[in-house]
């Protein structure tokens, strides 16, 4: 859609970068101009937001330095107004474009900005973006940062995504300490992909799942590769800490005792000692 003349005129007021491509040249006058542009964009509501998005370009496909910067400042601006409606309206306007036919690079940027300004109202739109492998990583990080409403979107996406996207979803469910994902974490322990197995272990530790003690210890004991072994062992220790904090001392002691008894190699001395210290602190 062609950009309106008033919007073009507004962006013309936004300062240019200097000859080195930086904004070292900002002075009080230029900053006031930036703030005024952002305030006017905010007043323009959805129409301004969509018009500004029309001015964004994919990396390498055009000069959008000023709209790119202005868009971010607008996102930050709406989060600091103390006006929840304005913020949510902005976020909804941005989210409405994530699934559009705009260039992928532009949509990635919109998702990234929702990590700043988005709330529960955009969780569903970000959830749909999880299904696009090109947007999944950014959408997952945005959803995890937003938190509110995110877990349901990740759970819904879990059966629909594959490969790196699936790993992303499992990991972010662990970030959110989603107890409803316990079964998914447990299943991940047996995955063909080591990174997924590590994610499952981490998830079970994050939710302090007492019923996962045996499975997690077996995963750590059975890990063949060093990276997986140190990560799943750490998950065991983290699970023990979580169980201890939750008053499940017996299960925690079981983990520490097992690790103390089984990590007999010289290279595992630090694990043995960690377990020993934990046991001493617990008694």
């Amino acid at each position, binding site marked *: 859609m062609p950009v309106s003349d008033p919007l073009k005129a507004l962006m013309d007021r936004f300062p240019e*970068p200097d000859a*080195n*491509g*930086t*904004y*070292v040249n*900002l002075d009080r006058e230029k*900053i006031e101009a*930036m*703030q005024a542009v952002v305030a006017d964009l905010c007043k323009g509501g959805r129409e301004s937001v969509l018009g500004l998005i029309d001015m964004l370009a994919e*990396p*390498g496909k055009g000069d959008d*330095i000023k709209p*790119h*910067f202005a868009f*971010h*400042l607008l996102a*930050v601006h709406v*989060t*600091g107004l103390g006006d929840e409606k304005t913020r949510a309206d902005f976020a909804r306007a941005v989210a409405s474009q994530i699934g559009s036919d705009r260039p992928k690079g532009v949509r990635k940027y919109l998702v*990234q*900005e929702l*990590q*700043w*300004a988005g709330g529960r109202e955009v969780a569903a739109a970000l959830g749909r973006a999880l299904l696009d492998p090109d947007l999944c*990583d*950014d959408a*997952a*990080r945005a959803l*995890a*940062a937003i938190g509110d409403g995110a877990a349901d979107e990740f759970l819904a996406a879990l059966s629909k995504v594959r490969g*790196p996207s699936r*790993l*992303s979803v499992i*990991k*972010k469910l*662990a*970030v959110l300490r989603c107890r409803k994902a316990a079964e998914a974490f447990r299943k991940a322990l047996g995955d063909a992909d080591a*990174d997924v197995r*590590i*994610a499952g272990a*981490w998830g079970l530790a994050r939710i302090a799942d007492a019923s996962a003690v045996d499975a997690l210890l077996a995963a750590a004991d059975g890990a063949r590769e*060093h*990276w997986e072994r*140190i*990560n799943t*062992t*750490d998950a065991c*220790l983290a699970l023990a800490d979580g169980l201890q904090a939750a008053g499940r001392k017996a299960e925690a002691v079981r983990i520490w005792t097992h690790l103390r008894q089984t990590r007999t190699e*010289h*290279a*595992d*001395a*630090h*694990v043995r*000692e*960690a377990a020993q*210290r934990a046991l001493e602190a617990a008694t």
Partner: protein
Amino acid sequence: MHERTGGMNRRGFLKGAAAAGALAVVPRHVLGGPGQAPPSETIAVGLVGCGGQGGEDVNSYIKNAGGSYRMIAACDVHEGRLAGARKKFGEHVYLYTDFRQLLERDDIDVVSIATPPHWHALVCIAAAQAGKDILCEKPMTRFIAEGRAVVTAVKRYGRVFQIGTSGRFGAHKSGHGRTIHKIMRSGLLERCPAVHIRKGGFPVKRYCGRVDLQPEPVPDNLDWDLYCGPSPLRPYHPHRFGWSHRYYWDYEGGSLADFAQHYMDPFQWTYGKDDTSPVAVEALAAPAHPEACGVWAWVELTYADGLTLVLDGNEWGPRYDRKPAHRLSLDDLDEATRKKVEALPDPEKPRSFVEAVKTRKPSAGHAEAAHRAVTIAHLANIAIRLGRKIRYDPVKEEIVGDEVANRLVTQPMREPWHL
């Protein structure tokens, strides 16, 4: 590439040699005769990050502290830098492009981390999980939650951690510094009237990132995906790699992130703040770009006891003029309190990394202190990026009443990485 051989480690060799009664024919350098550091005192190091700072910390914190080290292995995502590591440390050095493989080695005692900061926390944590002690370049982390995760890992595995700055050694040598430290740690001072102003020493303008980066082809000798690691995968541009990574939020955080740890280390020790953080932060800065760091004038941070810390960039914008500098002294105390403080013993001398490795006690630049010091820079940058005052809970390590600000305290990572 020099392949890693499996099996025998250094300690295993010594044990085997002794059992075989072979000590009589073991070379002198193994036993540590005159002029030779015995192998049990020679620290075996693996270096992760072979750029400009790569290898500096081993000199600063091992060699210059009276210890000796041997570089066993080096890792970098750039093959040219790897080749440089071999030139610098010798042909014997095993080379890796993935730090996870370096950590598999059981003949490494210490991992020295000199990657860009967005990798510091993950490599520190993995090193602790692998049973290695840690030297970590400053800034310790890229965001606040990373620091707490490193502290947890170091404590869990009983590792020694040293940050790549040592200002507190000088602070301890200062008689006045020791006096302030005693006053602050005595618990006798209810409100601290001190205003500590760090003016200048931040290359504010030089550390501004470019906003006009256009994608370029990834060089054949660079693993760009692994370089980006936990940070967003951006289109490659040489300004995001090498020295200038400092100018971007994805990898560091501008002049504040790069320099504050140096200045905050002695400040924090002097004022006894290694276990806490400011509770209010306000900045005067230009509006912040989403990817490129920009210019800032000053940042004012206040602790719960009233201590004020000011970081004045002294390059751009107006200078800080809200409060005059005020160095705490015995004159700030009443007579009775002064006498009590004067009767207190001097603070313990900061422990070197070499001594810490031997005794298994915390080093001077331990993880908690380093985390709290860099948190100052991160809080400053959060206030700058949001353009508003923030309040911080130093116990929960959360920003109070600003959920968006908390999204900068804890930042979800790109797969397959997590804290």
